[in-house]
């Protein structure tokens, strides 16, 4: 299968803080990769570097076979043009923890604005596309509502539809369910799972181990800005090899319900 994303030797520093220390990562078309790690391990920063919401200090990022930016005289340091980055972001969808819907636009307006202003679509075509994608996340009936009238789970599904309407080659999820009330987490995870099953390429930062276990093709455990351990969900989640991975999983599964009742 073809490679949608390749990250090579990625470094990110915030002042004296060295958050990412040489990340290497490859995501194939149709693959869902879940990134786990304690807070401060650099997982959100990694995700935000992939679509350049954070600028990497060093390293190469290749999306759909196209290297982003051009090399400079400094080894490993790349230079980027704004136009190139905007075009790249239009091809990589992102869903945020806080939804970040545009409150002054209706639900369909939120989904239409990208295709209209960035892909030159007519309002009619964009509305059709918006409705298709709202249906995809099961929220078409709210098309004319304003975001403030929606629950967190509904808002997050609209945010997913907004990203999908750009017809991205991959989707990034940055703790998409962390800000939700517990009873609203499921509907968002289900939408994400359906997307994965449709063959969307996804890079997912989450604390939902059940989602990782049931949906991911591959799990990456990040620790101290490095890939600490990776493998299939069965390998990493059920049979972790490294001590830090075990600690992390232990702290996340301290209290469990007896079977049945677990799982997604």
């Amino acid at each position, binding site marked *: 299968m073809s490679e949608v994303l390749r990250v090579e030797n990625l470094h990110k520093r915030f002042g004296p803080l060295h958050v990412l220390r040489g990340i290497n990562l490859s995501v194939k078309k149709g693959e869902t990769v879940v990134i786990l790690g304690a807070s401060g391990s650099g997982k959100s920063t990694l995700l935000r570097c992939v679509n350049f919401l954070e600028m990497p200090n060093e390293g190469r990022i290749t999306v759909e076979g196209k290297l982003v930016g051009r090399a400079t005289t400094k080894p490993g340091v790349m230079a980027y043009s704004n136009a190139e980055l*905007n075009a790249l*972001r239009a*091809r990589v969808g992102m869903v*945020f923890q*806080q939804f970040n819907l*545009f*409150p*002054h636009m209706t639900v369909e307006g939120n989904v239409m604005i990208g295709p209209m*202003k960035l892909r030159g679509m007519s309002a009619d075509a964009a509305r059709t596309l918006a409705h298709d994608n709202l249906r995809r996340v099961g929220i078409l009936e709210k098309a004319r509502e304003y975001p403030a009238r929606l629950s967190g789970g509904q808002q997050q599904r609209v945010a997913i539809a907004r990203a999908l309407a750009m017809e991205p080659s991959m989707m990034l999820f940055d703790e998409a369910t962390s800000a939700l009330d517990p009873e609203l987490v499921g509907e968002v995870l289900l939408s994400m799972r359906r997307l994965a099953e449709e063959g969307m390429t996804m890079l997912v930062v989450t604390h939902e181990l059940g989602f990782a276990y049931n949906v991911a093709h591959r799990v990456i455990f990040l620790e101290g800005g490095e890939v600490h351990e990776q493998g299939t969900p069965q390998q990493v989640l059920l049979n972790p090899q490294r001590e830090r991975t075990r600690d992390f999983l232990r702290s996340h599964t301290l209290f469990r319900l007896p079977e049945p009742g677990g799982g997604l």
Partner: protein
Amino acid sequence: MGYEWDFAAVFRHSGLLLEGALGTFRLAGMAILIAIPLGLLVALLRLSRLPVISWLAVIYTDVFRTSPSIVLIYWFFFAFPLLVGVDFDTFTAVSLTLGLQTGAYMAEVFRGGIQSIRPGQWQAAKALGMGPAMTLRYIILPQAVRRMIPVFFTRLTELFKATSLAAVVSYAEVVQMASRVSSETFRPIETYTVVALFFFVVIFLASRLVRYAEHRFAVPE
């Protein structure tokens, strides 16, 4: 003491007052046309990441906000033409002065409005592939301007009333005309009562209009 009110004398000169009212509207209109785009521009400069540009904007707003309007009007009418060697007519001098000063206030209003929008909005637009100009136009300003409406209106009210200062350089706005009418009719009380009513009615109607607009374009939050 019994004062004999007599508005008839004033109404015989209503043509002059009307002319003055038109002058007032023209002044205010031109000043607004200058102030709003200028305010937005200065606010954006102020928010620039380049310290030099941001400082220029700060200097501009501080100079114009700290000077009394009447001093600025004298300065632009008498002093500035000497510096640049171009004569200003009174309309140009006063509308420019009030426009530049209101622009400085507007800049702060725009800046506050823009900064009140959560950074997540910028990020979401950026993640879609929008550049800063597009984000500002479609995402940030439509939200910011809604929040700015009340303060915006206060500033415009101040501007509208400040046009009366144009009388000091004998521009034919409503207060200047009123002083002419009152000296011809010897009816200053009636004349200035009419002028006060004029300001009240215009600003009152405008405030209702603004309240309606606020309601009309409100978005659930």
